[in-house]
């Protein structure tokens, strides 16, 4: 109740301040597209692929702006604090930002208030080991007589959270070696033999599978999508398919409804365009856009899912 009230107040204030001018002729100036990561990462790639198509359908320039820092939280806070006039939107990392919020470590944003516009797509995870490793299946890693070592960027990163919760679900002991600079570094660490396995998005691992450096043991999904690799559903871990990286487009709380609707439409249209779909195939980055209602539902579902493991995450 209180939340709805707050939401309403913000919206009303926003309307009073900016809507009058904005409604008349939105959009009439460039739109800022905030990415909370440096140029070159996955989220940046999505934003850059989307921006030209968005420009076409909105008729104004769409400027991608990188605001890296604090594991994406700085970018999130920048979007959240912007004026809700429809001229600032951005891409959100779910559950990369969900987990800090659950643990009370989020600074400057609240996912419950964000104006969700569309979901671009989700990336699935896979468990990988070194190509010449003796491990053939997940169970080999769990029965080492010691916790298996897993490489990751930071303890709050999406793949860290996934690895931690998933292995706890099946009582498989794990040590998370964190601090690597990016997902490539975590995979190189695997190749150096510092860690036993790593759980990363399939798209990131794929390059190293092709070059013959790493081998996939299992993908985190119900039906297998990679040839010759069992899915977690097949291997008897039905819960694992809930773990995924979702790339969501959203704006600051309180964007007027008509502007939000137009933005949503434009994002979905841009993501469904031939150019973006071709890019998606060639770069192996999934793009299956869905609109605002589905996105909101997905946000609630994921928040609920991770809330179940709040205590587990907190004691990490």
């Amino acid at each position, binding site marked *: 109740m209180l939340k709805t009230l707050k939401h309403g107040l913000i919206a009303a204030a926003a309307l009073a301040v900016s809507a009058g001018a904005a409604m008349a002729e939105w959009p009439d100036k460039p739109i800022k597209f905030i990415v909370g990561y*440096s*140029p*070159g*990462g996955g989220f*940046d*790639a999505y934003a*850059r692929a989307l921006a030209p198509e968005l420009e076409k359908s909105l008729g104004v320039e769409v400027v991608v702006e990188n605001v890296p*820092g*604090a*594991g994406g*939280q*700085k970018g999130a*806070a920048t979007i959240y604090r912007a004026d809700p006039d429809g001229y600032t939107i951005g891409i959100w990392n779910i559950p990369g930002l969900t987990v800090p919020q659950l643990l009370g*470590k989020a*600074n*400057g944003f609240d996912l419950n208030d964000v104006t969700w516009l569309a979901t671009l797509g989700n990336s699935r995870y896979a468990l990988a080991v070194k190509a010449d490793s003796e491990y053939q299946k997940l169970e080999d890693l769990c029965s080492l007589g*010691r916790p298996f*070592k897993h490489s990751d960027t*930071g*303890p*709050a990163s999406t793949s860290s959270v996934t690895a931690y919760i998933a292995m706890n679900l099946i009582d498989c002991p794990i*040590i998370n*070696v*964190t*601090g*690597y*600079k*990016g997902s*490539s*570094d975590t995979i*190189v*660490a695997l*190749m*150096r033999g*510092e*860690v036993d396995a790593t759980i990363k998005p399939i798209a990131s691992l794929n*390059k*190293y599978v*092709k*070059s013959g*450096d790493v081998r996939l043991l299992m993908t985190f999904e119900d039906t297998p999508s990679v040839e010759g690799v069992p899915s977690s559903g097949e291997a008897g871990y039905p819960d694992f398919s809930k773990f995924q990286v979702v790339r969501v487009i959203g704006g600051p709380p309180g964007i007027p409804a008509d502007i939000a609707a137009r933005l949503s439409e434009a994002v979905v249209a841009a993501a469904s365009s031939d150019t973006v779909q071709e*890019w998606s195939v*060639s*770069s192996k980055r999934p793009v299956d856009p869905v609109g605002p209602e589905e996105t909101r539902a997905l946000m609630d579902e994921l928040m609920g899912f991770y809330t179940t493991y709040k205590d587990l995450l907190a004691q990490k």
Partner: protein
Amino acid sequence: MGLDVLFDAVLAVFTSGSVIYVFLGVVLGLTFGVIPGLGGTTALALLIPVTFSMESLDAMYLAGGVMGATSFGGSITAILLNTPGTAPNAATTFDGYPLARQGKAGLAIGASACASAMGGLIGLFTLLLVIPVARELVLAFGPAEFFLLTILGLVAIAVSARGKLLRGLIAGGFGLLLAFVGSDTVSGELRFTLGTDYLWDGIPLVPTLTGMFALSQMIELALKGGSVAGNADAAKQRISGVWEGVRAVFVNWPTLLRGSAIGTIIGAIPGLGGTVASFIAYTSTVQTSKNPESFGKGNILGVIAPESANNAKDGGSLVPTVAFGIPGSAETALFLGILVLHGIDPGPSILLDNQREVYGLIVALTLSAVGASVIGLIFSRWLVMITHINVDFLVPVVVAVSLTGVYVLAGKPGDVMLAMIMGVIGYLMIRFDYPRLTLVIALVLGETCERSFHQTRMISDYDMIGFMAARPQSLILIVLIVLTLLLPSLRRVKWR
């Protein structure tokens, strides 16, 4: 693969007329190198949006032009104003600035230009040679070695500030403490942030460099009055010294080769970057010299060693890039970022899939290393005049331009404030004779140092010593650390 590909790439850059992009990059790289605090990383970061609309190969030429030129550009102010343009140029100040004050700036600039070009060429040549074994080379170095290398770098820097070992170590300790500010890369915990999100990602480097090097030096110079070369005989300070400097590089070829080799190897280690390369090159030159007392007072070898290492590291930093598509330095990280913008996803097969771009970059780097030095030599006559410019003009200009540059990088007014605070701290350090260099370099290395320390602990099952003892790479580094630390003290005692 190899020479024929390279030959094609060279041909391509000239026949397509794209050589203009290399040239543009060189000019921009020199400019950014000269402006204190700013360097190749800043220039490339600002260029990324510009390259978006360019052909991917042209973007590589531009990036290569910038990368190859900044380190020489940065050495110019290191020599003339005791203000390294970029962090890796810091070691050049030890002997370059005393030379400038003695009125021999021409000699130092000439040596720096030539050593930069030669070092750059040697580094790139080595890169072409090691491409077949690049993968093994990169995999040989893990967190244990990263940790030891940061320690070696710090020790090398502390001992290279002559007669200031103790105060150098203290400044280094504070540099590390400052590096711990912000979110802990291993645990994610926020530390020492004073409750502001400005410090979440730690103390930003460019404002610190600008404050510590440029602003504090300007305060010192302004208080001294006159000009840098002061009362040195102006008549002697002519262009003639420049060619003498160029000659000195070839006469002292062992120093050149050692500097280049150190630069290439350290540059090749991913995650560390080349900042320590120039210091290790400098220290090793001092320690193998028969006459170590002459360093720090204007020994030309003290310019040749760090500057050759400095440019050789660019070639080295491409080793991890061609092996796995991972960056070996901040510059190569941005170079990979440019590739991604052009729809290329760098990975372990980068050399097969994106041969054109990788060799394009190598060619651009080669042209740039030589081109920057040639431009430098042409303009050296006017550059040297900087040391005769009165501080009344020099001080406000350097302060205004470098503070503007600080703002440009991230667009945060807070950065300008930080630069000023660091400027005052830096001045106090000059005044009370605590070396600023160790503090700044420790700040640069602190994050890698702490991160790799914790990683080594975890991957060694909390038995770091046993783990390192079993790795020959680690053992060599430990021996080097001990030698670097003990040699100067032993020498000092012996001479008494």
